[in-house]
């Protein structure tokens, strides 16, 4: 401690202090002013200042780890330990709060960049963060005084979901079956839910999560996160390198297709073979996730699995087909996968051979797959930092570049230091975390020569980078050959991993990532946003805890989210929400615009056949991704997407309405209880039949359970009757459906009263509604 500092020996620092009960500690009236400081620390200082600013450097592995002010990152602590860790962080602040230098509180002077603060200015003197810290200092030093302001979030607020109505159980089941299995609920499932209510859901979900369609959705959802389908180039070149798979990766070019006599057919078969091989290669990482979840294996295996998944086609590419072919049910199925442990790589010359103490490739789940490594390649100057960044984002939920620290003069810093990333505090703050992880990827260095993945840098790893390791732990030399396994083991053991995976489950279900903590302390809605964030974090922690207790069974995370208030939220009870309340509830509920793939599945579920046109360019136009350049799905509809929706509604109705009427009644799915000859405004009985048909359509297409005399049904009835009446008033219309809409019928469907077209208008209307297009 610098001698300049005058130590104010406030007895409060020396005596024991009331223990903050955790991040959401409540006031303890009996403890008086000191307790107020403790609450202030837990509710204000820690979440709004210390965890966002101080912790960047003042932690183990941080740039200020050698100072006497070292904090603990609560996100790295297990939930049961967080109260204690918060207490030790508070104690660290309590020790500093009484200290003064140059007649100013030391803590505040450091925060504004004075007293040679290594992190320079982290708070502006007029900022909300500074005022929070100043209030803490005041409370510590004058504990008997009245608190200047209460914490922004009060403990006596009403329960978060008060006034939010939840989905009824039938609609929750429909939401879950469509989302996870791409189908409507069966009658028997609906019966079970009708009889047992919400408590039936876990078992029903167990069944849904065993369906093949769920695994398709699982792979699709996780590719949205990991984007491994976006590997550049031909995967048989970019995934399987020339150095190690030269003789085997092109097996399809030599594959014997001579049994196909016709030359054109043989050529086509060759193309198909190559395409399926490449697709199978790209799909391997997501098949690993599929395998782990399907067999209820610990989800930690996505970073620890000592195997990869191979298909009969990809096994040929690796040159191991003969070894594993007996394990396939169908050795000719390009997309049947089995787990396999590869042997250590053998190159074209000894320098390309892989070092391995076991003789096997050191698999570390996704981390060491060739697809992940080639999707996130490196360069001579990037030095694996992209990989380290993606590792943090994918597996620990930390985006190291998300809120990059502003530097007073970044150019000057770059020029001033020989190695800014190790010497300039502005750079060190991130690089001390990122660079050691980048170093763990050091043996996957090759990025030229046909994008070989494995290979050591000839000159040795960079000495002007922080050495390989993970958040303060150096990689032992004898672990280098299995560095990614070493990383995977630490990742699986890190509490952030479980929380991040629970966040991925949330993303799969809701199409958006969990909330970030609000950053703008001056935002008038800050308190509301903070409350929303905390409520969501609380839910994540609860689910993460159950996920861990269930040996990291990913299905547990999915099921718990489905049953959560957040997922089941339907609408508000009354329209009396204050702006603050609406800000707090801003993210709840699913309200997810369906992706092209999901929409196709929903159309197939409702109509018995997909539309089939939400592919390729149209899918991109509809907000889809290519996993390469376009990696974020559109979440809101543009006018272009509105146009696609119009076309979709028109065309799907066109293809299905007359077709359904052309089937025998017992095979109809849209109109099982009505015929085109039932006209509106003819009799009460005919109107009732039409209304019943509308109720059925509302249920099937929209998932609504409407009463036949409800305003919703009234509106649809008015549409149907209005179209029929308009047609009648015009006279002379064609007594047949439009040509395009009467193709492929099972039996003729005349339309002398225009009712078939009126029903088509009804279905078009329903398909354009948010209940259909959103989840």
């Amino acid at each position, binding site marked *: 401690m610098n001698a300049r500092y005058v130590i104010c020996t406030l007895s409060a620092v020396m005596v024991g202090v009331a223990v903050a009960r955790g991040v959401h500690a409540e006031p303890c009236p009996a403890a008086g002013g000191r307790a107020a400081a403790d609450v202030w620390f837990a509710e204000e200082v820690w979440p709004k200042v210390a965890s966002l600013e101080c912790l960047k450097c003042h932690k183990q592995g941080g740039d200020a780890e050698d100072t006497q002010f070292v904090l603990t990152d609560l996100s790295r602590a297990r939930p049961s330990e967080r109260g204690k860790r918060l207490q030790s962080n508070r104690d660290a602040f309590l020790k500093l709060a009484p200290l003064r230098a140059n007649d100013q509180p030391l803590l505040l002077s450091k925060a504004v960049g004075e007293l040679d603060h290594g992190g320079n200015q982290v708070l502006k003197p007029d900022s909300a963060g500074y005022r929070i810290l100043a209030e803490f200092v005041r409370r510590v030093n004058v504990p008997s005084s009245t608190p200047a302001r209460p914490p922004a979030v009060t403990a006596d607020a009403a329960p978060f979901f008060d006034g939010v109505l939840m989905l009824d159980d039938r609609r929750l089941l429909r939401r879950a079956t469509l989302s996870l299995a791409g189908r409507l609920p069966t009658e028997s499932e609906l019966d079970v839910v009708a009889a047992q209510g919400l408590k039936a859901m876990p078992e029903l979900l167990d069944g849904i999560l065993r369906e093949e369609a769920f695994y398709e959705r699982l792979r699709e959802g996780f590719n949205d996160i990991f984007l491994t389908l976006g590997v550049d180039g031909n995967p048989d070149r970019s995934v399987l390198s020339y150095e190690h798979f030269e003789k085997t990766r092109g097996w399809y070019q030599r594959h014997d297709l001579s049994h196909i006599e016709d030359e054109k057919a043989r050529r086509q078969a060759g193309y198909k073979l190559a395409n399926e091989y490449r697709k199978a290669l790209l799909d391997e990482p997501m098949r690993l996730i599929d395998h782990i979840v399907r067999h209820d294996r610990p989800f930690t295996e996505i970073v620890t699995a000592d195997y990869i998944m191979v298909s009969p086609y990809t096994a040929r590419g690796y040159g191991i087909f003969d070894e594993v072919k007996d394990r396939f049910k169908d050795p000719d199925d390009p997309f049947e996968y089995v787990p396999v442990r590869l042997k250590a790589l053998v190159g074209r010359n000894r320098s390309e051979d892989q070092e391995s103490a076991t003789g096997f490739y050191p698999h570390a789940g996704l981390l060491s797959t060739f697809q992940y490594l080639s999707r996130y390649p490196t*360069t001579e*100057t990037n030095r694996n930092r992209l990989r380290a960044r993606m590792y943090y984002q994918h597996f620990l939920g930390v985006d190291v*570049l*998300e*809120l*990059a*620290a*502003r*530097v007073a*003069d*970044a*150019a000057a810093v*770059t*020029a001033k230091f020989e190695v800014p990333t190790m010497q300039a505090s502005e750079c060190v703050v991130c690089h001390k975390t990122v660079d050691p992880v980048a170093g763990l990827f050091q043996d996957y260095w090759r990025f030229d020569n046909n994008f070989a993945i494995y290979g050591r840098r000839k000159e040795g790893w960079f000495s002007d980078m922080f050495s390989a390791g993970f958040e303060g732990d150096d990689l032992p030399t004898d672990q280098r050959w299995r560095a990614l396994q070493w990383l995977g083991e630490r990742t699986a053991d890190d509490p952030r991993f479980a929380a991040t995976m629970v966040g991925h489950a949330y993303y799969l279900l809701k199409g958006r990532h969990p909330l*970030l903590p609000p*950053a703008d302390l001056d935002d008038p809605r800050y308190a509301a946003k903070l409350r929303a964030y905390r409520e969501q974090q609380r839910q994540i922690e609860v689910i993460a805890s159950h996920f861990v207790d269930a040996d990291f069974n990913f299905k547990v995370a999915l099921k718990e989210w489905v049953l959560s208030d957040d997922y089941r939220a*339907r*609408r*508000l009870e009354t*329209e009396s929400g204050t702006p603050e309340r609406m*800000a707090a*509830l*801003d*993210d*709840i*509920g699913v*309200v997810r*615009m369906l992706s092209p793939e999901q929409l196709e599945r929903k159309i197939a579920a409702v109509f018995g056949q997909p539309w089939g046109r939400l592919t390729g*360019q*149209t899918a*991109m*136009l509809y*907000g889809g991704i290519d996993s390469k350049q*376009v990696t974020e799905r*559109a979440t*809101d*509809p*543009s*006018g*272009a*997407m*509105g*146009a696609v*929706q119009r*076309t979709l509604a*028109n065309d799907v109705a066109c293809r299905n309405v007359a077709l359904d009427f052309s089937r025998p009644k017992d095979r109809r799915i849209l109109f099982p209880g009505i015929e085109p000859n039932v006209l509106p405004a003819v009799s009460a009985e005919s109107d009732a039949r039409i209304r019943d048909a509308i109720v059925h359509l509302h249920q099937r297409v929209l998932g609504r359970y409407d009463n036949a005399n409800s305003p919703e049904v009234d*509106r649809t009835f*008015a549409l149907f009757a209005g179209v029929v009446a308009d047609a009648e008033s*015009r006279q002379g*219309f064609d007594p047949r459906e*439009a040509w395009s*809409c009467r193709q492929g019928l099972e039996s003729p469907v005349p339309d002398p009263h225009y009712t078939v*077209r009126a029903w088509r*208008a009804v279905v078009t*209307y329903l398909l*354009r*509604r*948010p209940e259909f*297009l*959103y989840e």
Partner: protein
Amino acid sequence: MRRDFFKWCAFAGLGLAAPVRGQRAGRAADGLDLPAYDGPYYVVINASGGWDTTYLMDPKGVGGINRLYREGDIVTHGNHRFAPTAKSQQGGLSNEDFYAEFGGELLVFNGLDYAVNNHSPCSRYMATGKLDSLAYPTFAALVAACQGPSCPLSFLTFGNYSATGNLVAMSRVPYLPSLKRIANADAISGNQRAPYHDDFALARIEGALSEHRGARASQPLLPRQERAESMLYAAQVNSKALARVTPHIPQDIPKQRLARQAEIALASFKAGVCVSANLSIGQFDSHANNDADQMKLIPELLEGIAYVLHRAEDLRIRDKLVVIAQSEMGRTPTYNQGDGKDHWSIGSIMFLGPGIKGDRVIGATDEGQFAIPFDPHQLACDQDAGIRVRPEHLHEALRQFAGIADHPHSRQFPLGIKPEEQLRGLWG
């Protein structure tokens, strides 16, 4: 026309952030055609990866900063000084030709301080003017939300950072043929003579949807629900206006990357269905072989800008088109061992369009390519009392230029520039 447009917007209530309520929505769907947005139009062109400004608008012929020309080779055109590239370019348009044609209209700002030098935060910062938030909209999205929220393709993007702040939907129309495909959504295969529904039936469908929206708007929905349903309704209703794009889609698809994007954006502008577009070309991140890469990419970029302006002239919207050319960072004043240049947090930006006085260069870097502090009121370098001009300063100026600085959407995303730091008279 412009007044009609705003009147219609207010009438129809189709702004995305302002939910459609009650009968107003019904009137919009009853057949009131969406008026065409008639400008100004904004094109933001991103040189993605970090351009080498010393090979374009901020030439340095000393200190080994570049290897292709010397101080005496630097070219001038009016008030502009730029690097000579005619002898080094690999395709595209040379600086000499670009400045000869457009220098008189061009405003350049040199010495822009990005504050950090990583792609992701820099891209976000340059696009939004806010470094430390993921919530802020890009300028292109903000201006679209303020000036044409109901345009079906109000904010088009072809890449780069494109956050919208939930103010407006982002439109991705990656291919010209896609535009044709969506232009006539109510006709079978886009053939106007083969509508799916008779007119009266379609009118009934629209009416029912409008009524439904009105009924929903009066219910206590979740905030996200209210927003989503409002946006969905607006997207479908407004998409009818896309039929106006068809006549402006060219028969031939150009080969150049920027030109392909430009055709989609310009056709949409011309049809009055779009306010702003993010255009982007990548691969500027020249960590290896800087000179070869930049000599290919900068001419390609300039050729693209020229294409945008020429085609805008063909379509007779040039006088309403504002072009901003930027990159998320510059390149170091030194070469690395691979003959490349790494990230540099000082750079430049170019503006051109109606209301922007050209033939001007504002701001500067010194011989070492460091930003020289700048007096924002005098628009002159001031080593002693100047400020570091950062993206938020330019964004504040852009908001004022576009007349949206006081729009509620802009106020929702404040940039926090004090009056004494605002760039006064930047546009001339």
